[in-house]
């Protein structure tokens, strides 16, 4: 009974592991994200992208937000590769800051 109460207490604490980024550079729509534990895998792949400063997963929206370090760029192909390596699917991709976008040909 104590174990059940502990679970409920922690579950109702309304804690969240990630907050929306204020000014993300990139947003990737990811198909297949349906639970918090799975989000870690995609976050880990995105953190391996060279130049990635912050990565946030917004579960209900199915979005991964990325903030790049100043002066760094990333290709669309690299972002799609990260989603695939995580075991999911890219449904959409938006560069909100064109300065971070690198051409695929230059990668």
């Amino acid at each position: 009974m104590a174990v059940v109460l502990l679970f409920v207490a922690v579950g109702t604490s309304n804690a969240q592991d990630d907050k929306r980024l204020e000014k993300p550079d990139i947003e990737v729509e990811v198909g297949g994200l349906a639970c918090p534990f799975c989000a870690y895998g995609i976050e880990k792949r995105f953190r391996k992208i060279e130049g990635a400063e912050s990565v946030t997963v917004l579960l209900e929206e199915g979005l991964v937000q990325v903030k790049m370090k100043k002066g760094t760029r990333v290709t669309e192909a690299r972002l799609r590769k990260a989603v695939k390596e995580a075991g999911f699917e890219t449904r959409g991709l938006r560069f909100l800051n064109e300065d971070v976008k690198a051409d695929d040909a230059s990668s």
Partner: protein
Amino acid sequence: MRRPDLTVVIVLAILIGVFPFRVAAQITTQTALPVSTGQGILRIQLKSPGASGSNGREVNNLVVPMVLIYGLNHRLAAFGVVPVVSRNFDMNTPAGKIERDLSGLADTRLWLRYTIYQHNGKGMLTRLAPLAGVELPTGSTTGSDHMGRLPRLLQLGSGGWDPFVGFVFTHQRFAWQVDISAVYQANSEYKSFQFGDISRLDIASKIRLLPRTLGSGLPRFLYANLETNLIDLARNRTGNQTDADSGGFIWFVAPGLQLVSRRVVFETALQIPLVTDMNGTALEPDTAFILSTRVNF
């Protein structure tokens, strides 16, 4: 050390019947959820499966399976389960109550799971993945206690290399999830003894209790789980002789709770034998308590 009464040992070996199933350190059910390339998951469980029968026979186990999962690529994941077991056995005999006990490493399971079908949508996924592996004879077959060597059926290991195959299907949405897995294990003979083959069908379902609405960010989920395990155990064999007092059919149900965050899962369940149809005097399984945690790394 005083030599145990040989008569008692023989009576014990006969009256044990058979431990209804080896304590394979299996997770209640499999899941086909993706494991990212280079991602690892460590799972540690605490389980208390036991069994009882006539003549006051009772086996109690404390099992700690340590599970390591690693994503080799986005479709292929490797699994390993290393169980540590503490077992004790009691029974009444004409010479009085007998108590036997044994602790140590049991047989290790290794397998690969490969996703052959996937469908991804917003807030939902479907996966189908076959799996294949082997149970390795890392557990002892010659363990002993204060009364000397334990009977074969109480040993922690099978002695043989036992292959298994199966598949797992998962459909997950924000509000609920279903996992269905079927596994067949062919147990091999070792020193003229062979445990019966195992066939099992596991169905797990869960619904999200909290949060009621998701909102932004990455909230923790609290799930209510209900799992069911259908297990068929073939009879054991010694040489050409089939043990009539071994094997049978078990239907477990396991209600539980699961708290899921980005890095950690905590879960607890009671595995309750709803239907048992054991052969002859084979021991009947008791309710088991399960406590488990998983960590992403």
